[in-house]
């Protein structure tokens, strides 16, 4: 398995501010992803974090709202910009590990965000 850490683990933020979430993975990971999990819901993929280039966003998510960086293989950040209460969610990063020719995604512990 892969070791994936995130920080902060949780935060309470004011409307209109921005929060940057960091994700650190170990060297086995080939790809990194960011997901959102709204209260009581399942996970929705926000984007694929690409090393050294712009992230690939899923439908409904845009770079201006969720800028993502991945300056190297093992580190990525997700910023939630100009936050509103609707952004209150758990944000999770994941890393793809190729084990015995089978790719498996492992998840970080998540960042629980509450926007007031």
């Amino acid at each position, binding site marked *: 398995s892969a070791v994936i850490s995130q920080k902060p683990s949780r935060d309470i933020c004011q409307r209109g501010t921005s929060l940057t979430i960091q994700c650190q993975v170990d060297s086995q990971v080939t790809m990194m992803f960011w997901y959102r999990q709204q209260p009581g819901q399942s996970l929705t993929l926000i984007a694929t974090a690409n090393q050294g280039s712009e992230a690939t966003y899923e439908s409904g998510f845009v770079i201006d709202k969720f800028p993502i960086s991945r300056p190297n293989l093992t580190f990525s950040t997700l910023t939630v910009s100009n936050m509103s209460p609707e952004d209150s969610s758990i944000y999770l990063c994941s890393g*793809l590990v190729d084990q015995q020719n089978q790719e498996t995604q492992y998840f970080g512990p998540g960042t629980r965000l509450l926007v007031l």
Partner: protein
Amino acid sequence: SQQGEEDPQALSIQEGENATMNCSYKTSINNLQWYRQNSGRGLVHLILIRSNEREKHSGRLRVTLDTSKKSSSLLITASRAADTASYFCATGISGSARQLTFGSGTQLTVLP
């Protein structure tokens, strides 16, 4: 819309009993994975089953996959209170396991 739908949405059993959760999906898949999530925490990978496999075991977990019915089941035997969590299936689409689509999840409560 989500690829996977799980049932039941919630399941409550006594410690020692078996718990079965089902997942159905819509399109061809490369693999199907099951994850556990304790309340408000990250996801823990439980087991991966490939599209050419029918059954897989890991400790107290047994996963089946029926690609003709586009369904999978997760069986937890001899459940424990610590198994209380949400369980999600996630599918990797055919040709690419890189983007997972998650089901709606089953909330399992194991009563001591």
